[in-house]
């Protein structure tokens, strides 16, 4: 019995170790511990759209055997660091499918947005 339990514990540990969790080094992306414990999150790629607005793209990987309910909130900040009042800053829900990589992207609502802060949390927390 003990051997079976030990083997099970070892397998669980191996699974955890294999989890491709990459904490983003970018402070503009805030990932809660619950998400970080389940999903791998890439660093954000920031670019400009044709009309000059900012676009943020990042990938999340779900190595688990179950879908993950993700809550994404992107605040857009103006040149002074104040958050813009916009529908684009409201939380969004995405179900990150099991065993896949999902690309998240967010577009700035206007040219006034100079910076962003994206928060990834579990939905229904």
């Amino acid at each position: 019995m003990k051997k079976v339990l030990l083997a099970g514990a070892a397998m669980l540990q191996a699974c955890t170790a294999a989890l491709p969790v990459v904490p983003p080094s970018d402070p503009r992306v805030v990932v809660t511990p619950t998400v970080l414990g389940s999903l791998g999150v890439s660093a954000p790629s920031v670019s400009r759209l044709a009309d000059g607005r900012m676009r943020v793209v990042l990938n999340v990987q779900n190595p688990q055997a179950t879908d993950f309910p993700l809550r994404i909130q992107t605040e857009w900040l103006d040149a002074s660091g104040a958050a813009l009042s916009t529908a684009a800053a409201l939380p969004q829900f995405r179900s990150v499918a099991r065993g896949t990589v999902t690309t998240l992207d967010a577009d700035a609502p206007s040219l006034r947005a100079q910076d962003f802060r994206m928060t990834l949390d579990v939905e229904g927390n």
Partner: protein
Amino acid sequence: MPAYQRLLTLGFVVSLAACAAEPIATQRVDTRNDRTPVGMSLDSRDFQEAAQGMVRSMLQSDRLQARPDGQPRVMAISRITNDTTLRINTNELLQTIRRELSNSGRIVTSTAVGLEGPSDPMAMQARQLRQSGEFDQRTVAGRGQMAAPDLSLSGQIIGRRTALDGGAQRMDYTFQLTLTNIRTGIAVWEGEERISRVGDGRTVSW
């Protein structure tokens, strides 16, 4: 009253009290961080989410750039049909779309032209002041100053209920919007957002 009847009455009262639900305390909700439970019908979060998706799609469209002179394009609101069992004020959807488009600097909305009359009749009403000697005529809107819309926004909200196995139900709400170039009558942008729920089949939503 005999003792056993008293006991029965007491037991009945106690069981009633146990059945009574805990009162739910009224709380404030920060709509920017709203984690309250959802129901089978639509709430303000759904309209915001649908509007957000639509605006994003519009602003991504190459066909909806500002005019060559840099001025934003002018949009009028046409018919938005509610094909659900819910009583919906379409302004919950439209106001967010109008505000976001206006803030983007690409598209503004005319309140002087509408399918059932202007949403703000004051622009026309104020022109009657041209007849009045009481007003400085330099401050009264002159002829030919209104901007005619070159885009028309129309669409519908569709609700579909599907019974699922095990007594559950699925509700799909589809938001469909179309922007038509008024000059040519051609749809220059079309968007669709879907909000779906799965829940108890006994829940009635209207």
